[in-house]
């Protein structure tokens, strides 16, 4: 096992990785920008190196500085955390070229899954269902109608060359489709200089379901069940839970089996997640994350498996050492992402934490780098704490969550704790009947 791991990240995830290292008796090196000199992970690390000024490009994305820090501290391995360089295949490669272990999968796997088009093609090859659509550009209205009849309405017309909603049209039947096709083509031409459009089934109320996976690169792949991350605002996850209240046992087994089989075929070596949209009993590939995820703790709560430790063990070349049948997922867990933001208008709220008191007691875990007197810097993303509640069932979990949210004190800055308090008290959320549009409707209502 490694003697010393450099953690190339900041905030709560840097602290999370530090904790996993210390739990394994591994020394840690914190690298940090000047803005994070007083961060908790820096204070707790065995060694620390300031690698640049606050802008991420000059520090947390500064590959030469990170490699130099690893050199002068004599680290064995570099853990990229989440965000920043964690999905940069070139970084993985250069880390390895410099003789360090990169705590993550093969660079090629990172690159493939980081490219939307290659990832979708790879998913198809790996037997993962994707959203049905036309094979390529639609040549005529009758071809569009035939394709739509095959994949089923409603369908979405999308520009081949573009993204971001330009040239995108929703058709609910044949008549609408025929009327909208020329409009979509004209918009696509205007926006991207190419009038090619293609067709895709439109999912109007899907859930976001993802499967947590571990592979050791020697054929062993297991899953830790699914997570439901449907509560999103502007495509950002806000609250996650496992198991999903929207899946039955059959659907759960089906999606986990699909995901495990795909990683077996890929020979994947690290932790990873495959994300799906789920509607009407069917799963459709969104993307694969070739790294740890923010919401990983809820899977840890159910499985008792420390995912960061497993990631380090796998990176050190160890075999998983257990099979799917050895893993017992029990109970229910929910994570609230606490952001330093105004809970009503979501304006970021950096500044000094005047009061800090984390909740405790049974079934409550807090992953946060906050402390009283800490200055939340304005340069980075606003996630400052993850409150994780565990219970033997969803009801117990929700009750503990609500109680912990009552206890949680973060003074001096705005946080999204009040939003989570509203969610935890909401009857519809508590019923578990929500899709990826639900939270935005809840906030608008």
């Amino acid at each position, binding site marked *: 096992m490694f003697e010393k791991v450099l953690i190339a990240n900041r905030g709560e995830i840097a602290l999370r990785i530090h904790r996993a290292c210390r739990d394994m008796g591994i020394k840690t090196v914190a690298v940090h920008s000047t803005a994070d000199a007083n961060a908790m992970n820096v204070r707790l690390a*065995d060694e620390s190196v*300031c690698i640049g*000024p606050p802008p991420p490009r*000059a520090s947390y994305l500064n590959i*030469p500085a990170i490699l*130099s820090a690893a050199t002068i501290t004599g680290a064995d391995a570099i853990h990229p955390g989440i965000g920043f360089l964690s999905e940069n295949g070139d970084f993985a490669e250069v880390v390895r070229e410099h003789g360090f272990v990169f705590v993550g999968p093969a660079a090629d796997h990172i690159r493939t899954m980081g490219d939307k088009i290659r990832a979708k093609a790879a998913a198809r090859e790996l037997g993962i269902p994707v959203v049905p659509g036309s094979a390529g550009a639609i040549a005529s209205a009758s071809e569009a109608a035939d394709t739509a009849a095959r994949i089923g309405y409603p369908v979405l017309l999308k520009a081949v060359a573009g993204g971001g909603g330009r040239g995108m049209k929703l058709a609910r039947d044949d008549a609408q489709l025929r009327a909208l096709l020329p409009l979509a083509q004209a918009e696509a031409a205007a926006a991207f200089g190419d009038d090619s459009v293609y067709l895709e089934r439109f999912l109007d109320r899907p859930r976001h379901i993802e499967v947590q996976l571990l592979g050791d690169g020697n054929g062993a792949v297991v899953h830790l069940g699914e997570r439901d991350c449907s509560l999103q605002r502007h495509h950002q996850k806000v609250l996650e839970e496992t198991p999903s209240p929207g899946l039955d046992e059959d659907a759960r087994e089906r999606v986990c089996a699909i995901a495990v089989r795909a990683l077996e075929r890929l020979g994947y070596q690290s932790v990873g997640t495959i994300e799906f949209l789920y509607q009407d009993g069917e799963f459709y590939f969104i993307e694969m994350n070739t790294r740890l995820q923010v919401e990983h703790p809820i899977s840890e709560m159910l499985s008792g498996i420390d995912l960061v430790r497993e990631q380090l063990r796998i990176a050190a070349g160890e075999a998983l050492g257990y099979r799917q049948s050895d893993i017992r997922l029990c109970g229910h867990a929910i994570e609230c992402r606490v952001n330093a933001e105004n809970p009503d208008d979501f304006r970021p709220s950096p*500044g000094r934490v005047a009061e800090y008191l984390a909740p405790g007691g049974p079934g409550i875990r807090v992953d946060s780098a906050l402390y009283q007197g800490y200055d939340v810097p304005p340069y980075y993303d606003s996630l400052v704490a993850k409150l994780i509640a565990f219970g033997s069932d969803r009801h117990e979990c929700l009750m503990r969550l609500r109680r912990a949210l009552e206890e949680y004190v973060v003074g001096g800055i705005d946080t999204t704790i009040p939003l989570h308090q509203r969610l935890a008290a909401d009857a519809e959320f508590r019923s578990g009947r929500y899709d990826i549009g639900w939270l935005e409707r809840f906030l608008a209502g």
Partner: protein
Amino acid sequence: MKLGGRHSPLAPDPDLIRSLAKLLDETGLSEIEWAVGDQRIRVSRPVPVAAAAPVAPQAVATPGEAAAAPAGRNGAGPAATNGHEHPGTLKAPLVGIAYLAAEPGQPPYVKIGDTVAEGQTLLIIEAMKVMNQIRAPRAGRVSRVYIGDATPVEYGTALMLIE
């Protein structure tokens, strides 16, 4: 930068530092050191050699290292870490191993008391097998060398004082 060994989880108290800084101003001292139990704090401020008497604040831009200055209210600049605040302080612009001489056994590029010209090489920082020459941001006299030869440096480490 901390290298090796275990740490104390206690952060220095910024208010304490501020009040000690004020005491420095008030008393004209250049250094205060204070210890209680196994905790110790020291603050110091270089007193300009040519101006021992109190002088009006000088409006000197930090030369060639604007990025190293504390950025915004949350920026804990490296200066806060090592206490070297003089505007003539030359700070490491990158992480690596600092060498004072071109090769082992050779005389150092500069030594204390030397007068240097703007752009003159003062030391080298090796990063990723590349030797980066660190040059004088302006002409002046080398009044302090804060590091030894072959020292690991982090971003913002005070290297020399050029007055």
